[in-house]
């Protein structure tokens, strides 16, 4: 077995490190920490965060790639030691998620089949016991092959669901118990740090535990039933649709995060310098983003994707594996999405910096002869982070949706890569069939919907907590502030 690190895996790793660093930085500043506490104090905030975290976990599991060693081929007349010194690896790259969903991946049928169906979706010529040829829907190769009598299916599903439910509840009970124990230990250890205790006691624990239980139960159910049925059916070539939709999570989450992260340096760097230095720099930055904004984004993206296709064609030797090629194209897409959508945040940051650089504390810093570099990093940047946070979470869902739109018009990720956009693109022909093949698009839609909804709800909470103009009712402390201002 050999671990393979794709570029996007590495970027995800960097991203996780960045998030941890950010959390640590936030905890040192009581003001920002307080605002984040507001986000997690609300039930919507906590619940949507757990869903996002769950998606992220799947994306991480799907980003640990490895290649299986191929079994040794023993050929006569060749020295054995020479063979064993060189191990060959499979050209198929698997991830940890593939390992978990191995059943789903392996149980491939020949063509379409509906969710939970025992029969194929297309009639085939079959021979009965008497040797006569007749045309009917054949039984599926894998799904439901363990039951002989099709009429037992309903009771089988019920039985398995009950078992899965029990297992899920047990696991979540154990997990909740574990969390409680860890919390008690933490509280005991840090009893001197009052803040810590307060954070925990303010969290909507019931919501968090319910959400966790719900996620665990549905996961066990999906894995248990997915191993014997196709819970979302199969696609044209017989691949399990549920497997595809889950694999597409990595694409969605990564495109959302990476494209957002890529917009940040440009938006922050140019926006703040335009607002801070004004004059010529401001003119140049404004010129760049107005120009960029006036070109239709889709046009730029389509043109760049074509260029990248050409590049891949002419540099075949650089991309040995299909997955490497797909990964390269995927990253380029993130880059292009990022490069075409930094202007909004840049504009906001410029305006905010213009405002802040007029404030007395920046003037005071000038009076103390503090160099520009430090004024920006110490006085400006920390005071615009709320805008960056809000833009970050809002952009995330926009990029997830953008990916599916782009794949739909054919300039998205590589066709070999699982993505919701590709699934929806395929549904174009599936939905025009009669009877329609509705499950593929439904699976993609529902998984994407949950992610985007969670991200949007979370973004709302973040904005409420960080935007000073919004006064949220019912949250401790904010109302008091408003009352004092009157």
């Amino acid at each position, binding site marked *: 077995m050999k671990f393979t690190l794709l570029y996007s895996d590495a970027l995800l790793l960097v991203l996780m490190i960045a998030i941890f660093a950010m959390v640590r930085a936030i905890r040192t500043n009581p003001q920002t920490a307080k605002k984040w506490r507001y986000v997690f104090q609300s039930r919507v905030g906590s619940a949507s965060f757990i869903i996002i975290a769950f998606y992220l976990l799947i994306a991480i599991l799907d980003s640990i790639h490895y290649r299986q060693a191929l079994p040794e081929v023993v050929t006569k007349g060749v020295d054995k030691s020479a063979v064993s010194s060189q191990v060959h690896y499979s050209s198929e790259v698997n991830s940890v998620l593939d390992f978990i969903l191995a059943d789903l991946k392996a149980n491939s049928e020949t063509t379409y089949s509906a969710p939970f169906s025992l029969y194929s979706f297309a009639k085939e010529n079959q021979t009965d016991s008497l040797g006569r040829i007749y045309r009917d829907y054949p039984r599926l190769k894998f799904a439901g092959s363990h039951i002989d009598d099709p009429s037992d299916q309903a009771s089988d599903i019920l039985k398995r669901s009950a078992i899965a439910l029990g297992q899920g509840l047990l696991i979540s009970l154990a997990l909740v118990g574990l969390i409680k124990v860890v919390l008690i230990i933490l509280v005991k250890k840090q009893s001197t740090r009052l803040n810590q205790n307060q954070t925990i006691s303010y969290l909507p624990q019931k919501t968090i535990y319910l959400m966790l239980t719900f996620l665990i139960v549905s996961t066990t159910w999906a894995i248990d039933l997915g191993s014997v049925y196709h819970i979302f059916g199969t696609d044209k070539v017989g691949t399990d649709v549920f497997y595809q939709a889950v694999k597409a999570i990595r694409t969605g989450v990564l495109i959302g995060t990476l494209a957002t992260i890529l917009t940040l340096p440009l938006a922050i760097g140019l926006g703040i310098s335009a607002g801070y230095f004004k004059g010529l720099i401001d003119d140049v930055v404004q010129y760049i983003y107005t120009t960029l904004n006036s070109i239709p984004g889709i046009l730029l993206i389509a043109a760049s994707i074509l260029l990248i296709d050409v590049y891949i064609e002419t540099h075949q030797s650089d991309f040995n594996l299909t997955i490497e090629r797909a990964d390269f194209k995927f990253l380029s897409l993130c880059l292009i999405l990022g490069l075409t959508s930094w202007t909004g945040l840049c504009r906001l940051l410029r305006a905010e910096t213009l405002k802040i650089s007029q404030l007395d504390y920046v003037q005071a810093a000038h009076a*103390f002869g503090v160099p520009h570099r430090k004024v920006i990093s110490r006085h400006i940047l920390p005071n615009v982070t709320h805008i960056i946070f809000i833009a970050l979470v809002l952009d995330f869902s926009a990029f997830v949706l953008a990916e599916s739109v782009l794949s739909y018009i054919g300039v998205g990720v590589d066709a070999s890569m699982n993505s919701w956009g590709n699934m929806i693109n395929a549904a174009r022909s599936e939905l025009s069939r009669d009877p329609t093949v509705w499950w593929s698009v439904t699976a993609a839609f529902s998984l994407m919907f949950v992610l985007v909804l969670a991200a949007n709800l979370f973004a709302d909470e973040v904005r409420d907590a960080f935007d000073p103009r919004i006064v949220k009712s019912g949250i401790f402390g904010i109302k008091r502030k408003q009352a004092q201002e009157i």
Partner: protein
Amino acid sequence: MALLSVNNLSIELAYDNTALVKQVSFEINSGEIFALVGESGSGKSLTALSIMRLLPDALKISDGKVQLAQQQLFSMTEQMMNGVRGKDIAMIFQDPQTSLNPVQTIKQQIGEVLRLHQGLTLIEAQPRIIELLTEVGIPEPQSRLNWYPHQLSGGQKQRVMIAIALACNAKLLIADEPTTALDVTIQKQVLTLLKQLCKRHQLALLLITHDMGVVFEMADTVAVMRQGEIVERNNTNDFFKAPQHPYSQQLIASLPDGSYFSNQAGEQPLLEVSDLHVWFEQRKGLLQRVSSHTKAVDGISFVINQGETLALVGESGSGKTTAGQAILNLTKATKGNIVFNGQSTAQLSDRAFMPYRKDIQVIFQDPFSSMNPRMTINDIIEEGMVSLKVERNKQRRRQQIKALIKRVGLEPEHLTRYPHEFSGGQRQRIAIARALAVKPKLIICDEPTSALDVSIRGQVLELLLELQLEHGLSYLFITHDLSLIPHLAHKIAVMKEGKIVEQGHTKQVMQNPQHDYTKELLSAVPKIKQT
């Protein structure tokens, strides 16, 4: 029978029942001017808003009754209340800039009230609007009917607000700090107008203010509010003669004493400013050619000696802050010379000015915006010491900061906290410590006390005076508040439209002003004449 009677009014926060106003009762008669005095956060504005039933959602009235000429205001429906607002009770707000709609003409805005409460169309209302504008003293009302708020000055806007309030012959006028945003001379005019109108129309006026001078000149009755309670209520003459409650005594005692003048100090000139011009270019057209200049500072000269305070007095827009910025080299001087300690500093580049940054420091007006909310007090004070290399040794730097923070009256424990944990007065002390940390010779104080409450103002000024004696500091004290000056400044320079119209020793200028503008300024200051 009183026109307005407030009985046991209590207001609390809706979510945790924290009492903000506790059992407040008072009465106002027709034609009476009733002043509600108190510091920020004492609940005076909340009391006024609850009479109008305009409290924000986060607050609720928990107890009490308000009766306006036989009507129980708290038992009315919202629709009935809308008939009372603007018709029987009218309100004038603090800032006329934001309380008028910028996209409507003044005719439309006055006409709207008449349309709502008297059913007049704009054409029918026109004679009444002209009459109202004449009454509040807007010159040529006929031609100004179609003006927009931005075409009027601050004082005129407040007059228009008063005209709107008067439009429907309201019985009660609530004025919430009506002149705080205005300059002294305009404040005088607006207050005189209000007083005249009250007497002429037998209006009851509920005047909310923190300025004891205004109270003395205006009010018939005074009520002092503190922490949501009325601690003392009396008629004005008796109140100023013999305040009963210790807090009222403190309020009156904290007013600067106008009869005391500082002695002369220092002979050695520290800062000499001669013929200083700061002009801002106004660019126009496609090629951004310079079309004209805004002359913020237009040829001023003055000298500050060592250990001396020069007060630079003027109304808003007179260029006093710009002059301070030019001395700090934050704004470049267009022309003229600034000599600091024998060295010319005007026209120096940022780099060349660096050595002087240590010697010239600044304290700003607003203690809430002058500190980065994301830095601890220690980091805020330390920043200048590090960047100006005052003390390289970290250990000694820490000790100096500790000593400083104790000197300005705070505790070393406060160093690890963030600015938002401090009150306005405490923050201004921190700002003073920050300026002192680099051991300056000259501190430019840009209205350091105008954002503070009266009782705290005195303490901060006292601290500045003590520090001046200890360290031989010189101050350039920029202010619009003439009442502070006798106590504080050795010399005074009066600025108007970018020029110094009169300067000299404080006593000489204050007691025997030569220029007309100085005379006008001095007479406009609301004063308490103790008899």
